[in-house]
C-alpha cells in the first residue's frame, strides 16, 4: 500500500517538471463480464486512475474494488465480501511498460503492454494488447483481456460454481488527458 502511494507521489513530482509527457485520467472505465449457463454477471467501474508516461512508456493504474457497480445488490455484496475481500484488499493495481510506445501516434494502432497486475493481494505478470490513439487533447486506450480467478486466489464456493465463470473478461477504456496542475 505504501509503495503504491509512494509511486503516485513520485509520478506527480516528476509530472510537475515535465508535464506534457504525462497523461492521466481519474475516471477511466474498467468492466468485467462473467458468462455462465445460469447467469451473466457484469460490473462496471468508472473511477479508475490511470497514468501514462509516453516518453518512457510507463503505465500505472489503480482501481478501487468497491467502485465496481453490479446490476444486483446481492452480487455486489458477494463480490466484495466473499470473493475479492475488498475490506482486506481495497485496491487492484497494475504497473507496467508499453513495449512499443513509439507507436502511439495520431492514427489508431495496437500496442502491447506488459506488467504486473495485483488483485486480491496476488500479483501476476500479464501481457495485454490495447488499441490506442493520440489526439491533441488526449491519449485513448481501450481493449480487453481474460483473467483466471484461480490465478488471483479468488475462491468460488462449489454451490455457485455454475453461476460464475472461471475465466473473466475484463474490458477497459481510458481517455488520458495531459497532466497539469
Amino acid at each position: 500500500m505504501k509503495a503504491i502511494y509512494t509511486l503516485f507521489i513520485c509520478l506527480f513530482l516528476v509530472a510537475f517538471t515535465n508535464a506534457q509527457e504525462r497523461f492521466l485520467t481519474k475516471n477511466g472505465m474498467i468492466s468485467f463480464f462473467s458468462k455462465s449457463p445460469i447467469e451473466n454477471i457484469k460490473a462496471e467501474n468508472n473511477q479508475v486512475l490511470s497514468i501514462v508516461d509516453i516518453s518512457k512508456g510507463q503505465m500505472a493504474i489503480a482501481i478501487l474494488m468497491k467502485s465496481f457497480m453490479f446490476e444486483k445488490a446481492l452480487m455486489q455484496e458477494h463480490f466484495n465480501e466473499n470473493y475479492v475481500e475488498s475490506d482486506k484488499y481495497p485496491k487492484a493495481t497494475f504497473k507496467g511498460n508499453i513495449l512499443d510506445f513509439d507507436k502511439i501516434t495520431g492514427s489508431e494502432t495496437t500496442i502491447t503492454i506488459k506488467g504486473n497486475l495485483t488483485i486480491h493481494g496476488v500479483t501476476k505478470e500479464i501481457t495485454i494488447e490495447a488499441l490506442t490513439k493520440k489526439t491533441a487533447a488526449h491519449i485513448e486506450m481501450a481493449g480487453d483481456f481474460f483473467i483466471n480467478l484461480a490465478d488471483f486466489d479468488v475462491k468460488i464456493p462449489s454451490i455457485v460454481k455454475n453461476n460464475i465463470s472461471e475465466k473473466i473478461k475484463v474490458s477497459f477504456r481510458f481517455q488520458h488527458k495531459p497532466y497539469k496542475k
Partner: protein
Amino acid sequence: MRNKNVKKLIGILFIVVLSSMIIGYKIYNKPHVNVAENSADIIQTANMLFIDFSTDETKANSTYLDKIIAVKGTIANIAEEGEKRVVTLQTSDDFGSVICYLTEEDSKNSAQIQEGQTLVLKGICTGFLMDVILVKCVITDLK
C-alpha cells in the same frame, strides 16, 4: 383418513416450497442502497475527509468505506461523464480533492449548481486513489 393426511402434507409442503422460493427471489433481487432515502452515517467536511484519508488510509478505510457520508464543500469543478455529472470538491491540498459522482437522477436535476458554490452532498465512499471518491451522490443542501 390416510389420503387426507397425504393431501394435507402435500399442501403444507407446497406452501413451504412456494414461500421459500419467494423469499429466495426477494433476496436475489434485493435492491441497492438508496442514498436519497437513507440518512447519512457520517457528516464531514471535504477538507477533513481528505486529510483523514491522506494521513492514515487504512484507518480512514475502516471508518468511511461503504458508509453514506454527507460531505460539505466548495465546488472546484463540474464535469460531465456520459449521463452522469461529476462534482469535484476542493480541499486545502493542491493535489487532492473529493470527487462526487452524482446519480443519473441528480445529474439531470442539478443544472443550478456552479463552480465556487458551497453545498452538501450525500454519497457512498468507495475509497481513496489520488482523491477521495464518493459514488451515487445526491445533493442535499445548496447554500
